[in-house]
């Protein structure tokens, strides 16, 4: 925890230019989503292939309320977060009764529905071309410049990790892990498994939504391509790649999966092939994800 905060504080020393800041900010925003999604996938053991939809509700909620209706940005952010939470709650209650691949399908369907609505309602959203978003501003001052954004995102990431770690070590977190381990046994000790699954779903949706709002403000522009099925998959991949049920794994996963494509652009047309191959090889050789597998290897080595 402190190590993460220290690393985030020292990182700017090696940043040579704005591009580095830009990548770091995107990594941080994705890491916030991954930390939240990990509560659902890694700890509660429930998959979602639709979280780009919640990202989208946050991003477009903020964009539409602030750009089209002139709301103050923070109010727009709060309102779209509340909207996401309400949506996740309303949809989560019926679909989280589904198990395994059926849940995967249902969440995927939800994500697809959100993405099509966003791409189609062009009067509000600008359709496939996307829409402009005013910069983040509060108390009369606009947040601008890569450094200021980096500070904000780094602080929020540390906050997210702290909240997630607290939750995991609380009775709620134990309940989530318990129902992952054995749902009947969890019920038999009084854990309302449905309620706790919905709790994890709503929390992870809120993380994605807030990151979505911030991403929209930071980029100044948002298109439906960030709300697609493929983006949902990317988010899940971050969690699994870094390591399920490992909060730092989620941060590492987000960093690698956001950073890797940036590095791979030098490979030009080979980018997809290499990315796909790296993804496959990592999951075949480290099925539990990078961080837990490497930690286990380090422990074995120490003995």
């Amino acid at each position, binding site marked *: 925890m402190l190590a993460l905060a220290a690393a985030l504080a020292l990182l700017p020393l090696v940043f040579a230019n704005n591009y580095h800041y830009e990548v770091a900010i995107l990594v941080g925003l994705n890491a916030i989503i991954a930390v939240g999604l990990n509560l659902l*996938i890694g700890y509660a053991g429930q*998959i979602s292939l639709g979280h780009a939809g919640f990202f989208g509700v946050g991003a477009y909620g903020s964009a539409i309320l602030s750009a089209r209706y002139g709301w103050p940005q923070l109010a727009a952010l709060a309102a779209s977060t509340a909207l996401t939470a309400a949506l996740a709650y309303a949809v989560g209650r*019926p*679909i989280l*009764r*589904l*198990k*395994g*691949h*059926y849940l*995967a*399908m*249902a969440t*995927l*369907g*939800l994500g*697809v*529905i959100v993405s*099509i*609505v966003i791409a*189609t309602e062009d009067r509000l959203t600008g359709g496939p071309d996307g829409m402009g978003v005013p910069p983040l501003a509060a108390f009369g001052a606009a947040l601008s410049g890569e450094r200021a954004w980096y500070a904000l995102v780094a602080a929020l990431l540390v906050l997210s990790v702290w909240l997630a770690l607290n939750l995991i070590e609380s009775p709620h977190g134990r309940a989530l892990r318990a129902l992952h381990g054995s749902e*009947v046994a969890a019920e038999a000790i009084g854990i309302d498994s449905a309620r706790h699954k919905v709790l994890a779903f709503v929390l992870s949706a809120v993380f994605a939504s807030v990151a979505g709002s911030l991403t929209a403000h930071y980029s100044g522009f948002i298109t439906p391509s960030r709300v697609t*099925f*493929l983006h949902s*998959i990317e988010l*899940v*991949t971050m969690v*699994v*790649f870094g390591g*399920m049920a490992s909060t730092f794994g989620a941060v590492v996963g987000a960093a690698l999966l956001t950073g890797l494509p940036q590095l791979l652009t030098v490979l030009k*047309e*080979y*980018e*997809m*092939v*290499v*990315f*796909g*191959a*790296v*993804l*496959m090889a990592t*999951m*075949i050789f480290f*099925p*539990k994800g990078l961080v837990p597998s490497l930690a286990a290897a380090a422990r074995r080595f120490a003995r």
Partner: protein
Amino acid sequence: MSAALLQYLLAGLTLGAIYALVALGFSIIYNASHVINFAQGEFVMIGGMATVSFLGAGLPLAVAAALAVVVATLVGLALAKFAVEPARGASVVTLIIITIGASILLRGLATLVWDKKIHALPAFTGEDPIAIAGATIVPQSLWVIAAASAVFAILWWFFNRTLAGKAMLATSHNRLAAQLSGIGVRRVLLASFGMSAALGALAGILIAPITFTSWDAGVMLGLKGFAAAMLGGIGSGPGAVLGGLALGLAESLAAGYVSSAYKDVIAFAILLAVLVFMPGGLLGARAAERV
């Protein structure tokens, strides 16, 4: 029946038959390995794209199509052998990510081997629409429906009447029993990926003259095939066919009567509703968990 309704039904049936073929691929692999193969759509893409390129090399359509099915099957076997088999025992999500990696890899390869352009395949037998009771249907649609029906019948026969087919089903119900009776679980895994790849490629070849094909044509078709398999109940052959047809018809009717922009929204909303009320899909098993 109004001509418009008939028109939508015919279009829905064509689309549904394609979805059903892809869905069968999902279900066959699921039965053999409990893996949801997110690279299933890429087999569809390979089928279409390979046929286009063999055709471009001067081969006759039938030969080009047959070779394309062979290529896809080989890719399927390689996927099973080099990616899924070594990861046996990994969690469901890990396996999903592996097949997603495979799908990205295959799409990347497609852009290298072929290109990023959109390609058309000529219709098998002419383009002139045929009139039926006020509606029209292109001959290719008839090809789709006829070929898919034949495949469904062959698969039904294979899984219900032949020893090899029954053995494949047996492994899905009970791995241990299958092992004891000498059915190689490994061979079944390979066979299932080979068969699913061939089915996907066939779907890709059949649909390419109607919807065109390209390096990323498999994404949406794979998604719809997955949806159809889940709608029918994953692992159930008749469920896959029913799910495919239901999804195709829902989409086509929604496009016709409501809004073409929202056709997928309506199809997926119906899917969600079905799953909420029938958590195992239309024909899926509903066994209570035993403790």
